[in-house]
């Protein structure tokens, strides 16, 4: 039986808010450009990630695409990271473009600002999806066919929307409660839809690479490509292995020293030793295999934390009040037609801002702390709300009552 690896990597960087004080409000409207050596410096972070992850990984991927005509993968790249690459790391942007000209790298649709707009404003959500589509067309000359929502946040409503919008597929977390008795290794169809297909992340296999790869306490450490391929070959119950992860797994979350690039380099040749094995992009797997069942997901699922819900972004009062306050400005902001103001407002919608305010595992200094440029979730909230006040001030300057 033929089996395909569906490798999908998510590329994203937010515009982090600098340590913006209440004394900056109504004085400086520059929220995203601190000194270069500041922890929140977007320019410094994009330089670091380009050097450690984007450039070396793309070099490996391009070599693999050239060496193996069967090798394929899918990428999602947010508008916020594309803008930052254009401004601060154009060579890294070119390295992504070099991948897509092979014709074997498919780009996935999403919101331009990596936002949770779907849950707060449908019109804003659709505007951002359209902005992203145009940006991808402009930079990569292709039109995305498959949709992924920020943080793989997914439910029946979103599937219905994607179906109506004409997408052929949508991505979600292959969470046990969603799958029930099913396996993530097949193509599915969401309930209440006509055409759209559902691809569910195989989180065990994906997290073996994304989270556990460099962990020396893990019983399977060290993970080699041949061992990993043997697991896949031994799985009888599968047509497609959906390996979905952050792109920054390669070189940033898993450092070069962990051997992650060696793993990536060896994966295609090991996998392709078996003649019936292949790589497919997300569209291709949907075109190839018929859905085996319908899946009903009334509750929102995401790919984060053990809860697999939105609590990492919206779970505490700081998070929910901050995001609510931001979306309450929508009508007034859009009415100004002031592109600078609108862009700032949209950059503030990026989900990372709310993730930095997460307190649920702050004590353990866990994964949340690793990704945050702030010393505490409280500092993240304070800077964000001060910026919010300045947005209010700018609105009031235009004569809008807030």
């Amino acid at each position, binding site marked *: 039986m033929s089996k395909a690896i569906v490798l999908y990597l998510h590329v994203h960087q937010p515009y982090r808010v600098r340590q913006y004080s209440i004394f900056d409000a109504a004085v400086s409207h520059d929220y995203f450009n601190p000194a270069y050596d500041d922890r929140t410096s977007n320019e410094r972070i994009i330089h670091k990630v380009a050097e450690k992850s984007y450039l070396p990984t793309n070099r490996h991927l391009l070599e693999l695409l050239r060496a193996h005509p069967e090798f394929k993968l899918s990428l999602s790249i947010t508008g916020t990271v594309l803008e930052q690459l254009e401004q601060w790391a154009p060579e890294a942007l070119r390295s992504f473009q070099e991948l897509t000209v092979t014709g074997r790298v498919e780009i996935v649709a999403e919101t331009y600002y990596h936002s949770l707009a779907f849950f707060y404003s449908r019109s804003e959500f659709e505007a951002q999806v359209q902005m992203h589509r145009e940006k991808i067309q402009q930079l990569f000359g292709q039109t995305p066919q498959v949709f992924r929502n920020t943080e793989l946040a997914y439910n029946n409503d979103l599937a219905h929307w994607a179906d109506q919008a004409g997408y052929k597929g949508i991505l979600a977390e292959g969470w046990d409660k969603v799958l029930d008795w099913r396996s993530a290794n097949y193509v599915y169809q969401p309930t209440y839809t006509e055409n759209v297909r559902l691809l569910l992340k195989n989180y065990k296999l994906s997290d073996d690479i994304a989270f556990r790869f460099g962990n020396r306490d893990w019983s399977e450490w060290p993970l080699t490509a041949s061992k990993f391929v043997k697991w896949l070959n031994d799985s009888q119950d599968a047509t497609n292995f959906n390996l979905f992860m952050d792109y920054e797994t390669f070189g940033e979350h898993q450092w070069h020293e962990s051997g992650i690039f060696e793993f990536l380099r060896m994966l295609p040749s090991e996998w392709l030793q078996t003649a019936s094995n292949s790589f497919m992009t997300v569209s291709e797997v949907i075109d190839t295999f018929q859905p085996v069942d319908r899946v009903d997901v009334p509750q929102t699922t995401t790919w984060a934390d053990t809860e697999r819900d939105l609590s990492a972004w919206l779970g505490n009062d700081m998070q929910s009040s901050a995001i609510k306050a931001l979306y309450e400005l929508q009508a007034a902001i859009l009415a100004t037609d002031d592109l600078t103001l609108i862009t700032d407002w949209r950059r503030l919608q990026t989900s990372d801002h709310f993730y930095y305010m997460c307190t649920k595992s702050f004590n353990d*200094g866990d994964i949340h702390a690793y990704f945050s440029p702030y010393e505490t979730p409280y500092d993240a909230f*304070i800077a964000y709300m001060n910026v919010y006040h300045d947005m209010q001030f700018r609105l009031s300057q235009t004569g809008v009552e807030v």
Partner: protein
Amino acid sequence: MLGWELPPNNSGGLGVACYHLCKALSKKAVDIEFILPYTAEHDIDFMRINAAHPQDVEAVLKSGIAYDSFKYVKHSGEVESVDLFGQTVLYEKAVERISRESEFDVIHAHDWLTCRAALRAQELTGKPLIVHLHSIESDRAGKEFGGNPLVREIESLAIHMADQVIAVSELTKRGIVREYGIAPDKIKVVHNSMDVDNLESLDVSNAYHYLTALRQQGWHVVVNVGRLTVQKGVVNLLKAARLVIDQQPKTLFLIVGNGEQEHELIELAASLGISKNVIFTGFLRGKQWRDAFAISDLFVMPSVSEPFGITPLEAIGYGTPALITRQSGVAEVLQNCLKIDYWDVEGMANQIVAVVEHESLHRELQINGYRELERLSWDDAAIKLANVYNQQTESVGA
């Protein structure tokens, strides 16, 4: 154990730390004789307490609450006043007599005040000496390489002569290395702690009726509890208060404590034009002290150099979030609080404004801070110290 004070006759955190440390140690089957420089009644059953004073003296009374003078009441009824330095010398003589008469395995001395006596006891008995530093002279002076040269000399000698030095934080450890050029390996950090169950509970009604009424009218209260000295950094808190009040006029600052800076701070508040928003209570104990935390929206510890700093833990225990400076030992153990550099007046004001303004921030700090506090215990410190005792007595035996 050689200590300078115990509650209720304490002037600050030293006595409280010694009390809880000894209590936790007693549960580890450590037999403690605690030698104080004054005579007082204590409701303590987990160790023996001995007042060290010369044989011709009936009682030594603390006069004043801070590091002030002592009154010696002789058998003849004569009363003599002794200053702090004189007291350390008399304490040394008395400890010398006690160490000839008592049996013990380890000498554990707290802070420079007991160091002369500790060195004498070490010289006489050859027992291992553990010098436990809750602060060093440069902290108290609020200045690197600063302070009283005589105190520095005693501290330096004791640290060098000690078999083991204990510091209450990494900050203090770094300070000892910097000030006295001692090898870091000789210093072990044992953080102070708190058992949330040991906090005396609050009454239904708060002692601050006026503040309670103002709060109902939408006012917010920011409190500082501590000695009013350079080390505590209250000047910067008042400067920050000026900025806060510009943004949030209905904010009151409650300054609890006394000290040599008290008059200067009152004048500073006046010259900043915020006297109406700053309340100086003087030194408080008991209910009024507890209720000062409880009535407030935020506790601020603006210390320039705080070896540990237990008050933020007490504040959180009474449901009040804390803003602390990074120049404190407690910042090494406490995560769910706001942190700032002591010199960053504007940053301090920014954080105070945010807590006053955003109930969601206040609530998250309150809930998560309390959860974190519940995991702290003096037992952790006692386990580390009991290990030090074992190491010291074993190495002597071998």
